[in-house]
């Protein structure tokens, strides 16, 4: 997608050649392309307009450097502007009050309950005493859901099975928290639509009753154009203190983040990256910018990879790849590491451009089995110098591994293709993006 946009921008910039400077005239097409890209990423229509106007102003007059294409330069300008907009530093939670009261609000199904538990878990790990309160009295089994999560993370849950008044429940929960010397109280609330006046009034009443130190607007990162309406309506009534952007483990570009940030100008404090209680991360403006632009979340990919890959070994592999000395033994070791990394396809999705190439090569989690068996049947020499694996050796490998000749051929072909691809990826490092530790990442 990144390559895509960049190529489009270069094309749009055709008039720029020989002018050396971005001007009103030669930028028009480019700005259109950027706007389209933003709208495709679900940035609100009007905000995309506003945003590209700003970018245009910043871009005009800039010299196009020899080393980069005008398209790349524009992406850099857009990226920097996005990062600035999202705010430089990541903001934590308020620590004031005793207990600190955190109120979770948002639309139906956005992830409030799950993130109540994730935050509780997060705070508990910092050594704080935490309690959660179940103030969703509407959705079937909402209280039960929070109780189950509470058990999972070993955090007490305040609930009143018979009470249908969320304001009262919130008040009582606060009392209980004070009595028990709880440091942080998190209140889960029912999902509501911003045009549901009665329900919006109710959440306003909860706010007045318990004076939360944090009101977190929980929003689904897959949200489209409507994000602005909803965020604005919730903010008008609650003046919330921050945003949690959920379900970023998906493949949405997440343009809603830009829309929301622009309309309410509140910090995005956390992002949700999975269904489990530890799938919570602080917000990284740079990653979000890259994601919206479709550049792939390379940074977090690298970080994730580094957790598993040994740095020195990674550097070595990198070298081998560049020199075309990557062997089946390396391949085998990497499969073992990749397997440790969990959901592989998650990571693949983060690599710009490569996603497609990998689809064709198609290694699913299961298909490692056959590969491992074949590599295990190889002699040391075959592993180190795959080129020697001729017809008769292939036959031997097939019977030795309990696979067939086709599978062996396929593996050899895949290996060759991967070697090529990874070599290319390694080269990209020169472009300033560290892919250290990525060889064979699929």
């Amino acid at each position, binding site marked *: 997608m990144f390559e895509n946009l960049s190529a489009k921008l270069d094309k749009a910039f055709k008039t720029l050649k020989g002018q050396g400077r971005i001007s009103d005239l030669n930028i028009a097409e480019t700005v259109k392309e950027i706007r389209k890209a933003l709208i495709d990423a679900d940035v609100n*229509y009007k905000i995309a307009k506003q945003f590209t106007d700003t970018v245009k102003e910043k871009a005009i007059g800039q010299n196009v450097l020899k080393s980069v294409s005008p398209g790349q330069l524009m992406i850099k300008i857009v990226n920097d502007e996005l990062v600035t907009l999202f705010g430089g530093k990541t903001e934590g939670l308020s620590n004031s009050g005793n207990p600190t009261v955190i109120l979770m609000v948002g639309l139906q*199904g956005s992830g409030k309950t799950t993130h109540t538990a994730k935050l509780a878990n997060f705070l508990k790990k910092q050594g704080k005493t935490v309690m959660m309160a179940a103030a969703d009295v509407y959705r079937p089994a909402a209280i039960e859901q929070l109780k189950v999560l509470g058990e999972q993370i070993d955090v007490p849950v305040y609930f009143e099975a018979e009470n249908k008044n969320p304001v009262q429940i919130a008040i009582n929960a606060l009392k209980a928290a004070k009595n028990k010397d709880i440091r942080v109280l998190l209140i889960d609330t029912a999902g509501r639509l911003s045009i549901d006046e009665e329900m919006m009034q109710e959440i306003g009443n909860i706010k007045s009753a318990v004076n939360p130190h944090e009101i977190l607007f929980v929003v689904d990162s897959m949200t489209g154009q409507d994000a602005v309406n909803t965020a604005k309506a919730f903010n008008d009534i609650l003046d919330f203190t921050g945003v949690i952007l959920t379900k970023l483990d998906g493949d*949405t570009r997440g343009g809603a983040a830009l829309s929301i940030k622009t309309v309410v100008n509140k910090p995005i404090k956390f992002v949700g990256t999975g269904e489990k209680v530890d799938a919570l991360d602080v917000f990284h403006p740079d990653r979000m910018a890259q994601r919206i632009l479709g550049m792939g979340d390379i940074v977090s990919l690298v970080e994730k990879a580094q957790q598993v890959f040994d740095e020195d070994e990674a550097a070595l592999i990198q070298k081998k790849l560049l020199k075309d000395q990557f062997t089946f033994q390396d391949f085998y070791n990497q499969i073992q590491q990749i397997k440790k990394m969990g*959901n592989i396809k998650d990571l693949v999705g983060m690599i710009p451009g490569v996603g497609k190439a990998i689809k064709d090569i198609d290694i699913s*989690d299961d298909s490692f089995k056959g590969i491992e068996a074949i590599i295990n049947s190889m002699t040391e020499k075959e592993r180190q110098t795959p080129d020697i694996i001729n017809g008769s050796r292939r036959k031997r490998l097939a019977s030795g591994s309990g696979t067939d000749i086709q599978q062996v051929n396929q593996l050899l072909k895949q290996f060759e293709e991967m070697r090529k691809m990874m070599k290319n990826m390694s080269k990209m490092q020169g472009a300033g993006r560290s892919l250290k530790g990525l060889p064979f990442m699929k």
Partner: protein
Amino acid sequence: MGIFNFFSKEKLDTGLEKTKLNLFGKISKALVGKSSVDDSFLDELEEILVSSDVGIETTLKIIERLQKRVATDKYIVSSELNNLLKDEITLLLEENRSEIPTDFENLKGIKPYVIMVVGVNGVGKTTTIGKLANQFKKAGKKVVLGAGDTFRAAAVAQLKIWGERNEVHVVENGMNADPASVAFDTVKYANENNIDIAIIDTAGRLHNKINLMNELSKIKRVMSKIITDAPHEILLVLDASTGQNAFEQAKQFIAATEVNALALTKLDGTAKGGVVIGVADQFKIPVKYIGVGEGIDDLQLFNKKEFVDSLFKN
């Protein structure tokens, strides 16, 4: 062409209040006997469609079709142009190859009729199942539900409450059970108990998680061991507030389970759900139901005309 040609316009309105302009009201100054659509109309059309999540590609497609149509049909008063436009959008929602029943009464003689409900997290699958059970019961059908979300905290309990509300049986093997076996047991139960409709809930899953999508294929497969054609309806639930990611959702869920019907939920909110136009068009799958609230009665059969009209309301 007015498409994305905003640079000639004056400084943009930065206010983000819900746009009050009514397209058809604004252009009521009649344009007489025209065979082309003028730029300011197209600009506004673009804004309305894109702001309803229709997406750029589909918006361009609609505009292209409208221009072709106008070139041959011509229009005299603006209301005629409006009708041509609505026509073209409705046509995109029309074309589908699906052979599934279109109401709650007539199930085309299939019994038990098995529906499997799929979608990403939090879109409204379980709630839609609760509402569907209500509709089918009202139509005189015997219903059973299968608690195939054994993953999300208290998911089984949630479906059981819907079962109680509808007074229908819920087949369940508890939390963390194998969802495929729940599906199997549900279809088996339906077969053995003279049930008309079995509806199977599944855990929400993001479409880019290969393992979870494979699991879904498996859940689907096991049902055919009891009834060859089951599940007869594979209903993908989309949330109206979702943006362009709905395309990718549709694509992946279709690949994993051969989805043949769509439900669009949360249309009672401010989101317009315009992305389904492109999804229905691209994948030739009909939108069958819409969700308009959290209550048991808040489900309707999809009405193309009403939906298209709603895109142009405030």
